[in-house]
């Protein structure tokens, strides 16, 4: 593996950082003087410039040989203690190049969209400061050349997510949602940290302690037989890392923050919770694919959780009425597909779906934002309808993106999802069960997405009269990104046309050098049954079409009443789905309640026992000192006073000798002489 040392990569994260700093510290002033336009330019320019530099890096990589597509920009040293060495260095290889193009490209479009969406907001500048900061953190995450820099970015995106979800902080619901996102993320981050520690420690005990990805990859074989607490180290470490991924990428059991995160402004949902931050977990697994390939148990867990999440979230999405909630659960579900791909060793497929998903999900979210904007902030789909004629651009782009997510043939979503399903069936780590769950999920996806389209854009308008009057298409700043993203949803797929359909899967070839280590286990040389592939593809398309048809019947033709279906079983199942299986309530009771219980016990302990001990000590000290004082005043002082009194008494008695009378003195003299005389005589 040959490294090319460059020094311009650092500008990719640095430009948004500069933008964040300027917007953050000078934003209020700039907005006062130059208005929103000034901020808009100041915020969008860095990201678009970063995109330009990313394109430059891409072209640079193209000019190199596939085996040596490795650009390293070492900015400075950071930690160098003993065997632990981590530099501030940025790495561009095919995988991170894909990521930075997506982040800066789609991120840039969303920045432009947001200049229109956030129009009129007082804290316009603060929003863009945070948005730029987020872009910086996300770029750091994907560009970092070692686990620590990645973790810095990992935490950074969590922080910015918190700040942006709770952007309108005067409403308590928003801040609560932000807290929830951050705290749940932190739980995942704990697992991530444990993974990092374990990797470093186990490598170090063989003398190869390293944190940089290429170094870990180089020495990964040395820990193949190492065990820790009875588990193989590779399995344990990858499980810990995966816990981090479930937190960041909203899988079971740590997905609960994503639907609540819809409290934030729609551009935030689009950027963070559709296109970029939630994909961090997928990226991390792709980055560490060589380690995951050494741990089949973990891969099984990854695939299993991915499948379960995909199915689970899709069922909830079927009955939600908030336009953004549907999309949130859809995101969770699609992320599940990506994890299915990672879990069966189809790294490329997973990353491919990541890219296509970024396009159509961003388009869907921005489109919903446009709808909300046009509907004067109404988000309940039951109050929408018939917007097709009043918001044409929004309608068409939304429709295209929906076709993509449903897996309509020749759209981007079709190619990526289909590849995943095929790999789920055929890979050495895959199984038909995964495929069945995936297809079922795809069917439900098609169903609820088209339900959303029909409810929102077709039929008669069910909005309130005063809202209906103001329905209008969004300004160009908002519609232009929609168009670009919709085009992407159609065209990006052609990068990864699989071979059996006649394409040469450029995407796969592009990413091959990154995954050659991990692909040893994953059999895409395994079962290459073309006929099977065709069959499976047909079945999945048919299932998706069925889903669309059901939605059509229920919500377009109104042939069946959705309310009647909801009432099946006494309304119980419908309520269960509507309330998200009451998972949030269960978590609240068990986790939050349990924590509070423990903290109450500890508070009592501290107050009663610890304070008791301290107070007792204080009381003892007071007692001892009181005794000492008593002793001092009674005994010691008494002795001193006694001495003084005795001396005084003695003096009082003795001074009577001083009579002043000479006679007495003479007697004394004579007496003394007599005594002396007698003594001499004896």
């Amino acid at each position, binding site marked *: 593996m040959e490294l090319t040392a460059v020094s311009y990569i650092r500008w990719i994260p640095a430009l948004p950082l500069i933008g964040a700093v300027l917007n953050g510290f000078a934003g209020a002033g700039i907005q006062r003087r130059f208005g929103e336009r000034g901020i808009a330019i100041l915020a969008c320019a860095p990201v678009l410039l970063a995109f330009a530099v990313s394109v430059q890096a891409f072209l640079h990589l193209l000019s190199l040989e596939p085996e040596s597509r490795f650009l390293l920009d070492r900015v400075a040293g950071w930690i160098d203690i003993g065997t632990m060495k981590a530099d501030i260095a940025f790495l561009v290889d095919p995988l991170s190049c894909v990521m930075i193009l997506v982040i800066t490209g789609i991120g840039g479009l969303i920045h432009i969209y947001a200049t229109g969406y956030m129009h009129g907001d007082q804290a316009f500048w603060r929003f863009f400061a945070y948005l730029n900061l987020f872009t910086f953190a996300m770029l750091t995450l994907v560009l970092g050349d070692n686990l620590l820099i990645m973790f810095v970015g990992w935490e950074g995106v969590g922080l910015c997510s918190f700040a942006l979800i709770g952007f309108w902080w005067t409403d308590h619901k928003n801040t609560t949602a932000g807290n929830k996102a951050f705290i749940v993320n932190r739980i995942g981050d704990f697992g991530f940290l444990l993974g990092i520690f374990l990797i470093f420690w186990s490598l170090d005990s063989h003398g190869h302690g390293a944190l940089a990805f290429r170094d870990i990859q180089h020495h990964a074989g040395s820990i193949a037989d190492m065990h820790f607490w009875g588990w193989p180290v590779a399995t344990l470490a990858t499980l810990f890392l995966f816990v981090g991924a479930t937190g960041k990428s909203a899988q079971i059991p740590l997905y609960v923050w994503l639907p609540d995160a819809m409290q934030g402004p729609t551009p935030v949902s689009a950027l963070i919770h559709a296109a970029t931050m939630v994909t961090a977990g997928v990226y991390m697994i792709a980055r560490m694919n060589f380690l995951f390939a050494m741990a089949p148990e973990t891969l099984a867990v990854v695939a299993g959780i991915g499948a379960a999440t995909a199915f689970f979230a899709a069922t909830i999405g079927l009955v939600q009425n908030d336009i953004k909630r549907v999309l949130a659960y859809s995101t969770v579900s699609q992320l599940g597909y990506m994890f299915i791909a990672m879990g069966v060793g189809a790294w490329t497929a997973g990353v491919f779906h990541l890219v296509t998903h970024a396009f159509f999900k961003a388009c869907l979210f921005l489109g919903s934002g446009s709808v909300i904007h046009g509907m004067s902030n109404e988000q309940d789909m039951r109050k929408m309808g018939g917007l097709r004629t009043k918001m044409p651009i929004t309608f068409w782009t939304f429709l295209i993106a929906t076709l993509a997510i449903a897996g309509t043939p020749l759209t981007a979503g079709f190619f990526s999802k289909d590849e995943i399903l095929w790999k789920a069936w055929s890979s050495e780590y895959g199984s038909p069960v995964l495929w069945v769950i995936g297809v079922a999920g795809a069917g439900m996806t098609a169903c609820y997405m088209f339900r959303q389209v029909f409810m929102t854009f077709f039929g008669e308008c069910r909005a309130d009269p005063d809202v209906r009057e103001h329905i209008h298409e969004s300004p160009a700043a908002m519609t232009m990104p929609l168009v670009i993203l919709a085009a992407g949803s159609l065209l990006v797929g052609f990068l990864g046309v699989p071979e059996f359909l006649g394409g040469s899967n450029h995407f796969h070839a592009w990413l091959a050098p990154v995954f050659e280590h991990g692909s040893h286990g994953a059999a895409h040389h395994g079962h290459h049954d073309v006929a099977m592939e065709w069959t499976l593809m047909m079945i999945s398309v048919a299932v998706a079409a069925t889903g669309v048809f059901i939605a059509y019947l229920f919500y377009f033709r109104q042939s069946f009443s959705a309310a009647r279906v909801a009432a099946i079983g006494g309304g119980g199942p419908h309520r269960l789905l509507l309330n998200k299986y009451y998972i949030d309530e269960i978590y609240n009771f068990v986790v939050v309640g349990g924590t509070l219980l423990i903290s109450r016990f500890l508070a009592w302990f501290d107050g009663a026992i610890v304070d008791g001990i301290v107070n007792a000590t204080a009381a003892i000290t007071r007692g001892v000192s009181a005794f000492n004082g008593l002793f001092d005043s009674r005994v010691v002082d008494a002795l001193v006073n006694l001495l003084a009194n005795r001396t005084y008494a003695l003096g009082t008695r003795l001074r009577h000798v001083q009579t002043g009378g000479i*006679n007495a003195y003479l*007697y004394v003299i*004579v*007496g003394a002489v*007599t005594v002396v*005389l*007698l003594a001499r*005589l004896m």
Partner: protein
Amino acid sequence: MSLAVVLFYAFAIFTVVCAAGVAFSPNVVYSAFALMGTLLGVAAMYVFLAADFLALAQVLVYIGGILVLMLFAVMLTHRIANVNISNRSVGRLPALLVVGGITMIMGRAIYRTSWVVGTELPDGPSTYAIGTGFLGTYVLPFELASFVLLAVLVGAVAISRKELRDAQG
């Protein structure tokens, strides 16, 4: 019993009686005159001891000087002093006891000791011997004594004069 012995006893008794007068007389003037008698008696003793110069010196100095001085003092202070307390004695019994005790002890000492009696001094004028002694062996004490007398002279004048000055000022 030769005449000398009788005379000796007479003078001895005279001396002691006068001394008793000094001690026991209530009136201080009487005491002063009794003292004079005592001093005369002592001078007689000196004669019996063949200390002729000393006897004369005794009479001249003691009686002629000291006694007169004492009489002056008595007269100066007697007039105004309270007659009642001028000569009253205090604490007779303890004094008697003490004195009696000392007397007995010393008496024992005198009579128990076997005195070694050396050759008696030849009778004759002792003036020459005393003079030689003063300017020979004892010249230093002699000079010091004159020094002391000077100091006493000055001191007495100083004390007296100071009193006078205070009384006047």
